[in-house]
């Protein structure tokens, strides 16, 4: 596809009429470019209007969709094409998907400030209206082209399976045959979208379009690219964040068979070799002395105690309802607690890697990234070249979870590649990947609540301290000390609370980079809020489900998922000793979700999650099998965090190294998972992340039910759960 051509057309033929504009695609087909930006905003910023995804219908009927969102296993390469195929009346098998090139003007995510990003569980949410509209408009134009050809009323024609039919005469034309004519027709101002009850694809389980190559070894992830002549490098970055290389003795490394070159950077050393085996062996042979810098004595407990102190000082008010001070004065019972959650690594199965070829006149980058435009910008800056001289090839992602929203690995690879003749693939060892991740922030929370004589909460006070990832990653969204991520799940609760006050204190940990991590803000807030809600139920001596239900009269969708989860889980049924059920309820990523976890705590304190029941209302379901898969996935991800997840520092160094010290849940620990979806036609909610934030408090509340022990710090401390003799 000639992207330059498409882009230049998009930039020059600005349409104020609406979302879509048509033109002849290279090869004579119909091209529709569409904007994921709302019409109002278009009108306001008409001069910068730039469509950001493309439908291309080729003469052979092939429909190509350029995807602004990358496939990380979340099924987006299937669910997004379903939206178009539904309205366009084509078989999903006729849709072909391409990675979008880096271009924030064209492919910026309207729900994330125009950054070209796949994250925050919002691909379907962002595409829901505009992509269906794109499909419907294309269909209308194809029908119009056919009607013109036959000289009949378009209303007497209909589209079906990639063809336009004229029922009265039985004539048909394939889309490919109509594409060239359709390209010259005016774009209709308004098209009707299908009624949900007429959906043929949306809501039906569709087979994933990206899986065949993933079972036979042919799928190409970033780590698999092999441009001709590529060398392999691995690296050691300063073990202390912010440290520098003081001296390097590479004599022994150079003697290793297959080692080609040692690259010394300010704060890292890389060994370039014919293969990773030689690169690793070479790196082990390099003697590096580090100037450890100012973080050489940093420990996690110091960071935690700074955060704890910060929660004693006022923060920015994220939400205030009623008068919480008065509510507290009037309360009959008072409950107070503090909570802590640790730094977490992403531990994607595909370790960080990036392949770069720096030439005199340009730079080529091969990588799997959630933010390809940022990759291009970072590579250009590091290579000292104009953006146009940097070509980025995006590849399948062997796990994102937020890690590949960052470009630190790209910058590293370009820094190294500047010293290397020809292309070099920089592959991080697992140890490097875990010890130089950018971590889910550590959080410290202080809460108090007051209950009336019936046990109902009449005051809710919550102040928390930790890092704002948004403040670094998307500064325009950090305002007045607040951002929408750190507050999600802590404010706008589903519960009716007459007096509520929530404050956030931004504290950036010294030296430690923080980043988004699956379920982002709610990975912290939902654990705290739902654990504390459980504490209130216990203080009121009420059942945790009944207690919550009584606070949900104003949020019927939340009430419905909670009631459904409890019913399906057999909430009231008796359980053996040291087995308990715990519940959680959240509204996050525009999806309502309740989970009930059934947990067994061994005499030695070992926790086993036996069964999880999840009820959710994510509005219209596009691909139900993907919803199911994402919930299963997110629950396993969250159980890993609850039971094992913790990055700690001592002497400025991350103490975890590999999957022995940073454990991930395995198949023999995986619970049975049941998912119940509330069917409706509300706008779609996100589904990749909510399952992770919801499971964590469900597990800790279940541990409380099983043992009477309230856990206010993650991960679960096994020693504290041993059965007293």
């Amino acid at each position, binding site marked *: 596809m000639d992207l330059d051509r498409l882009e230049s057309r998009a930039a020059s033929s600005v349409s104020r009429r609406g979302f879509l504009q048509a033109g002849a695609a290279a090869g004579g087909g119909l091209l529709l470019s569409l904007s994921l930006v709302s019409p109002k905003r278009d009108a306001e910023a008409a001069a910068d209007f730039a469509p950001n995804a493309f439908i291309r219908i080729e003469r052979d009927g092939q429909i190509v969709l350029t995807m602004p969102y990358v496939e990380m296993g979340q099924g987006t390469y299937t669910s997004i094409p379903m939206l178009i195929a539904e309205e366009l009346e084509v078989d999903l098998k006729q849709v072909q998907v391409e990675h979008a090139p880096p271009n924030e003007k064209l492919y910026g995510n309207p729900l994330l400030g125009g950054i070209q990003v796949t994250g925050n569980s919002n691909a379907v949410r962002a595409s829901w209206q505009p992509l269906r509209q794109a499909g419907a408009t294309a269909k209308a134009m194809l029908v119009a082209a056919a009607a013109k050809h036959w000289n009949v009323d378009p209303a007497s024609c209909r589209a079906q399976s990639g063809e336009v039919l004229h029922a009265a005469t039985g004539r048909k034309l394939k889309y490919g045959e109509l594409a060239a004519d359709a390209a010259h027709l005016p774009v209709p101002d308004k098209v009707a979208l299908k009624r949900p009850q007429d959906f043929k694809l949306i809501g039906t389980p569709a087979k994933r379009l990206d899986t065949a190559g993933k079972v036979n*070894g042919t799928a190409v992830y970033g*780590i698999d690219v092999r441009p001709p002549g590529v060398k392999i490098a691995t690296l050691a970055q300063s073990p202390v964040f912010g440290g520098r290389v003081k001296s390097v003795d590479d004599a022994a490394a150079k003697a290793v068979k297959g080692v080609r070159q040692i690259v010394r950077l300010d704060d890292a050393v890389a060994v370039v070799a014919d293969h990773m085996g030689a690169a690793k062996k070479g790196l082990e042979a390099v003697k590096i002395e580090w100037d450890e810098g100012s973080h050489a004595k940093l420990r996690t407990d110091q960071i935690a105690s700074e955060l704890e102190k910060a929660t004693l000082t006022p923060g920015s008010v994220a939400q205030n309802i009623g008068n919480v001070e008065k509510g507290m004065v009037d309360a009959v019972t008072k409950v107070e607690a503090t909570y802590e959650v640790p730094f977490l690594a992403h531990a994607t199965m595909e370790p960080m890697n990036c392949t770069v070829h720096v030439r005199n006149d340009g730079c080529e980058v091969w990588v799997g990234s959630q933010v390809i435009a940022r990759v291009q910008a970072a590579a250009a800056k590091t290579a000292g070249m104009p953006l146009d001289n940097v070509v980025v090839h995006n590849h399948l992602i062997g796990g994102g979870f937020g890690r590949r929203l960052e470009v630190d690995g790209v910058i590293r690879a370009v820094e190294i590649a500047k010293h290397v003749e020809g292309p070099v693939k920089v592959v991080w060892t697992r140890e490097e990947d875990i010890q130089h991740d950018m971590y889910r922030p550590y959080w410290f929370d202080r809460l108090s609540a007051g209950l009336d004589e019936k046990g109902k909460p009449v005051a809710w006070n919550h102040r928390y301290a930790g890092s704002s990832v948004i403040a670094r990653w998307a500064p325009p969204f950090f305002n007045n000390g607040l951002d929408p991520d750190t507050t999600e799940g802590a404010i706008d609760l589903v519960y009716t609370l007459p007096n509520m006050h929530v404050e956030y204190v931004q504290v950036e940990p010294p030296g430690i980079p923080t980043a988004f991590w699956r379920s982002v803000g709610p990975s912290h807030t939902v654990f705290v809020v739902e654990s504390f809600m459980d504490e209130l139920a216990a203080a009121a001596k009420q059942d945790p489900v009944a207690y919550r239900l009584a606070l949900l009269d104003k949020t019927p969708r939340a009430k419905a998922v909670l009631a459904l989860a409890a019913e399906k889980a057999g909430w009231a049924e008796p359980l053996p000793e040291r087995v308990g059920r715990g519940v959680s309820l959240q509204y996050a990523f525009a999806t309502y979700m309740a989970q009930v976890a059934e947990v067994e705590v061994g005499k030695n304190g070992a926790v086993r999650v036996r069964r999880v029941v999840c009820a959710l209302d994510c509005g219209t379901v596009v691909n139900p*099998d993907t919803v199911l898969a994402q919930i299963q996935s997110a629950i396993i*991800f969250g159980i890993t965090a609850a039971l094992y997840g913790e990055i700690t520092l001592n002497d400025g160094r991350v103490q975890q190294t590999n999957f022995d010290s940073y454990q991930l849940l395995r198949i023999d620990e995986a619970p049975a998972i049941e998912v119940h979806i509330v069917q409706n036609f509300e706008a779609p909610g996100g589904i990749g992340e909510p399952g992770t934030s919801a499971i964590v408090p469900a597990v800790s509340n279940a541990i409380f039910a099983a043992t009477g022990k309230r856990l206010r710090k993650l991960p679960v401390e096994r020693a504290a759960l041993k059965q007293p003799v």
Partner: protein
Amino acid sequence: MAFSIEVNRKAYVVDVDGDTPLLWVLRDVLGMTGTKFGCGMALCGACTVHLDGVAIRSCITRIDSIGTSQITTVEAIGSTAAGATVQKAWLDREVVQCGYCQSGQIMSAAALLASNSRPTDAQIDAAMSGNICRCGTYLRIREAIKQATQSNGQRG
């Protein structure tokens, strides 16, 4: 030093140090990138291949330890009965998410089924617990292996 190895029924000579892990010979020297790097310490199973039909972790298998043993990788596992059944079951059950660990999962599952056509749940857990999946596809892996055992039974 030069080593002669046989991968997927084809002979290769590679000139690397004897302690070079098979994983890097496959991926970087021979260009067979279906076998994945995950941990380098036999902790995650992403690098699983078959050595004379037995699942091994190629990241800790030295090239000088292989001798005349037959190496089979994910690229060729579909030509074995168990491998083809497993791959089909994986697609039928929509096991895959990001897919990065699935080469190793499939190799472990194919080795299990080749040696035990009717594994119990406990045997499935035992054979598969060395393979980590960060996307958490474990429930579907179990289902797919069960489907594969059923088709094994029907055939046999």
